[in-house]
């Protein structure tokens, strides 16, 4: 049994609810599963439907259609069986600003069965020295740390982290990534959303990229990146016509700037360099870059934003 199973999930906001005036379908037929002990990242631009999806998994909202199982249970109808085994970090904190860090942790421990001692949870995220500070005086990064501490207080088997590192400084992000890895080593299943693509690339065992409510690419980071072409860029010397380029793959030329996209980076590069040597040309600003998750992501996001583009076409284009 997978720790998280999502099948044909749809979530429609009624007219007047959420941001848009009319009815709006934020999640459109999303399916994926997260294996036990796996770190799974859900990526996408703002409004892609990540949080709407995660809220259903957390049991905060009912799906409009489809089924969702967490540890084999319906997170809404069977919440009493799910809640003691999950930890949740919402996108925004949600703690009374006038309580201190210690008081907040004590409150949360009080509503959690078999909770860690509050002090231990705060130590885990490096807030051990800030226990008497009011929540309103914490920095954005410290609030995220507090939220993480509370998500961990019940030693959850499944952890939902909605943009856990947003607002953290680089050190905080590194600490959090380290902590998430340790949790995986202990067998915790983690579903996280993030804006930081290198974070997803380093942390996630598998990931899915959402666009306009659908999953448009998924797999291991390597798989998702492998579907993308590598890129060679350089500037043509003055007086050299683009027609003279030797490449079997098409190149995009903008003035003197040339961009080559290829799935055969080594072959294309060899061809190009041999041609340049034989012609006695210097290729200014030459760069060859294997595809990264960031590039994959940006390309998918741009495909979705192109005017007149149908959602379904965006999807086939990405898969092609």
């Amino acid at each position, binding site marked *: 049994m997978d720790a998280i199973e999502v099948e044909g999930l749809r979530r429609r906001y009624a007219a007047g*609810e*959420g*941001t848009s005036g009319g009815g709006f379908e934020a999640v459109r037929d999303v399916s994926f599963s997260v294996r036990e002990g796996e770190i799974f990242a859900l990526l996408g631009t703002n409004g892609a439907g990540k949080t709407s999806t995660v809220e259903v998994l*957390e*049991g*905060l909202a009912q799906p409009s259609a489809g089924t969702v199982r967490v540890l*084999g*249970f319906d997170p809404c*109808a*069977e919440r*009493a*069986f799910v*809640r*003691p*085994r999950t930890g*949740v970090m*919402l996108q*925004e*904190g*949600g*703690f*009374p*600003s*006038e*309580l201190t860090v210690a*008081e*907040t942790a*004590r*409150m*949360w*421990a*009080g*509503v*959690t*069965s*078999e909770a860690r001692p509050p002090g231990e949870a705060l130590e885990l995220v490096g807030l051990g020295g800030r226990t008497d500070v009011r929540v309103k005086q914490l920095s954005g990064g410290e609030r995220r740390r507090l939220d993480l501490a509370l998500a961990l207080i*019940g030693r959850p088997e499944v952890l939902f982290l909605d943009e856990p590192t947003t607002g953290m400084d680089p050190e905080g992000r590194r600490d959090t990534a380290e902590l998430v890895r340790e949790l995986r080593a202990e067998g915790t299943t983690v579903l996280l959303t993030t804006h930081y693509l290198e974070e997803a690339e380093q942390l996630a065992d598998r990931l899915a990229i959402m666009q306009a409510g659908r999953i448009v690419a998924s797999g291991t980071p390597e798989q998702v990146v492998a579907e993308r072409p590598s890129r060679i860029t350089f500037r043509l010397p003055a007086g050299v016509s683009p027609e003279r380029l030797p490449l079997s793959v098409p190149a995009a030329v903008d003035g003197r700037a040339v961009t080559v996209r290829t799935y055969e980076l080594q072959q294309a590069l060899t061809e190009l360099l041999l041609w340049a040597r034989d012609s006695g040309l210097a290729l200014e600003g030459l760069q060859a870059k294997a595809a990264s998750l960031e590039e994959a992501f940006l390309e998918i996001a741009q495909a979705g934003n192109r005017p007149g583009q149908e959602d379904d076409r965006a999807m086939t284009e990405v898969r092609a």
Partner: protein
Amino acid sequence: MSGTTTTTTRAAGPRTARSARSGRLSAQRVGALARAELTLLIRNRSALFVVLLLPTLMTFSLRSTAGQADLSGTGLSVGTAVLPGTVGMVLLFAVYSNLVGVYVGRREELVLKRLRTGEADDREILGAAALPSVTIGIVQSVLLLAGGALLLDVGAPARPDLVVAGLVLGLLLTATLAAASAAFTRTTELAQLTPMPLMLATFAGSGVFVPLEIYPDQIAEICRWLPMTPVMDLLRSGWTQQLSGPDTLRALAVAVGWTALGAYVVRRRFRWEPRR
């Protein structure tokens, strides 16, 4: 539901006890949340003023109003006119109006949403938020009633059971209506306004400032259906024994009815997160 048995077997193993425990209402969870809520109340000066001082201050204005009113022919003394009103003030200010602000404030801070991701049940979350105000309301009512009875020379109530019934129903009613009102309150600023209709209706028509006895019968009859009127009538009747048996039953039914309606509205309309 047929799924219940399979559910239980699926949860077999060491986790079963943990899961089952989380399914029942828990005093420990309510205690932890109520403790945090009490801390927040103590740190909020304006709320503290409304909860602790306003009802007592209002009692003095009740006293002077009642002193000027013509109570002849109503069978009331200044004491029996004022005492139920003091409890009315406690219920309206310390419980009702204060709790509308608490529920809306916690919702706007996303605290309610965060709490719902944990093990606490919805009823535990709402109940725990009300607990400090309700407890203060009880203590305050008892002190004001005892002090008032002494100072205004009315003595002990002949029917203490009616006083207790009025107080308990009043607390349940005002706490429930506070959550219901919060459902229709978008922002903490509006939480200053949305309690007004019930408060004004109660002042004018439920016998807080002026006993219904001095109104024409038909108007008094209409007023008996307002949410807080039965509470005030029950309290007053504890001293005056003015309610007949059927009248007492009707008062109980009206108070329970409004509470049930409030609970229904909460179930159907309460919002756990802000509209964005």
